């Protein structure tokens, strides 16, 4: 199954596949973010592969110069009982990744969560709102430059004025 996925993807999307790696028996394929929607659509609709079940989407902040943010897609094929991890990289200021909600509706909340926690925007998402944090919250808490204890005053107590903090 592993070889089939790699073979099909590399033959169809040649230059858009950046890296194929394996760790502890798990297959990870890094692709170009512009092509993610197309690749997901192919993976789902291909009769043989049929990755019809989206398990999870999450973001990662690597906190480095290039390829700082990653969006990780965790797919499952009900037919083949096979797991596949797709990964795209994105950088500021163009922190936009095409949304895959049109392929799996399950992506809706997972992408909202990723947006809420990392500030990664998903183009074409029907309802990109914050999911956990208050709507007027100005930061992205799972980024590495957000402190663990939070930013004092960023969530005002009832009846309290919001404290503006100058960031350098």
């Amino acid at each position, binding site marked *: 199954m592993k070889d089939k996925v790699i073979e099909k993807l590399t033959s169809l999307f040649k230059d858009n596949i950046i890296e194929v790696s394996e760790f502890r028996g798990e297959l990870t394929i890094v692709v170009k973010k512009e092509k993610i929607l197309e690749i997901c659509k192919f993976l789902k609709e291909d009769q043989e592969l049929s990755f019809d079940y989206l398990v999870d989407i999450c973001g990662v902040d690597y906190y480095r110069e290039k390829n700082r943010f990653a969006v990780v897609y965790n797919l499952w094929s009900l037919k083949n009982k096979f797991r596949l991890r797709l990964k795209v990289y994105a950088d500021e200021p163009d922190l936009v990744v095409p949304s895959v909600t049109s392929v799996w509706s399950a992506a809706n909340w997972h992408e909202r969560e990723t947006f809420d926690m990392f500030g990664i925007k998903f183009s074409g998402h029907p309802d990109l709102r914050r999911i956990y944090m208050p709507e007027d919250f100005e930061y992205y808490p799972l980024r590495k430059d957000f402190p*663990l204890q939070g930013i004092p005053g960023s969530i005002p107590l009832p009846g309290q004025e919001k404290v503006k903090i100058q960031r350098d």
Partner: protein
Amino acid sequence: MEEKIEKVIESLGRRNIETELGGDPLGTEMILNVGPQHPATHGVLRLVLKLDGEYIVDAVPELGYLHRGKEKIAENMTFLEFLPHTDRMDYLAPLSNNTAYMLAVEKLFGIEAPKRAQYIRVIVSELSRIASHLVWLGTFAMDVGALTVFMWCFREREKILSIFDLVTGVRFTTSYTRIGGVAQDITDEAIHAIKEFIDNFPKELEQMEKLLNKNRIFIERTDGIGVITKEQAIDIGLSGPNLRAVGVPRDLRKDEPYLVYNELDFDIPVYEEGDCLARYYVRLDEMRESVKIVRQCIEKLPSGPVNADEPKATHPKKERIYTKMEELIHDFILTNFGGTPPVGEVYHAVENPKGELGFYIVSDGTGYPWRLKVRSPSFTNIQALPLMLKGYMIADLVAIIGSIDPVMGEADK
């Protein structure tokens, strides 16, 4: 005369509903807010409903009232230090969560627990599956009006909590597993208590079923209510008993066998209807299968150590720390800096009582996870709620929310 009346009404301050509500004087469409503080939402789930009379036109679930930032916390502590936080996610089945988390960490470190520890983990996760389903059954039956079942379920669950007390030392927030094993070996007293429980439990379950299976009120409130089709369920990513209630036989214990599940004989109950009643039957059958698994595990339980011999990853025994230099050094290093896993990323999922619970860990080679993502089943199950609610009456709301078994500690993380 009419003019006069109108003038009087105007002077009384009557509002012109027709113009104010935009030509909908009867207000057939209405927005209703349910929760976050509502007994039927099982925690702090908030739902905004759009109603047409008594029928639900649309529903928007809102999360975040229990968001504690578990993933951020995880990045700032060693792998073992995060373990107690997993208790507080799905707080109805903490032992399943402990097992799930440790399996992911062990996969990252590349170590495996000894056979005896694996069997113990299976026993405790299946017992917590029964405990979780009992809470679900009790509250679900209470939601639709059967109060006795609730009492009976909690009585049985109490017995399981007492068993946990014997096995782990605590009843509820267990933190029982360790990297490469479990905190302590299972005693003969605990095994005896488990045996006694699994011998009695099927009879008790039958009694509960007798109260519900032919109960007209229960059947009418659940049969054909909250239907979701197979295609919708796969598309929205339902998992666990909710997915098996629409006819998809997906169970990670069979599909991706972990621990010793491939050495055990059990079935995956699957129902086709996809309504509240099917979800009820799936969970009841699952409890019976769990009893079967626990019984086999107790028969097969091998002797031997319960902790892997991996000094660079697992904490040494207390008595050895005080007497041996090597162990003292390892304990110091592991406690202060954590074990050092290889650079890489792993995902490991287990079949939790609620569905697929997975941990995705990105490691940069230090003792702290660089990123830890929890794939919680309740999160995706709640996402499917609008699909189940649309078109049903507001009285069905409590039955439908109850039937998908959400735990907000897990959905909000």
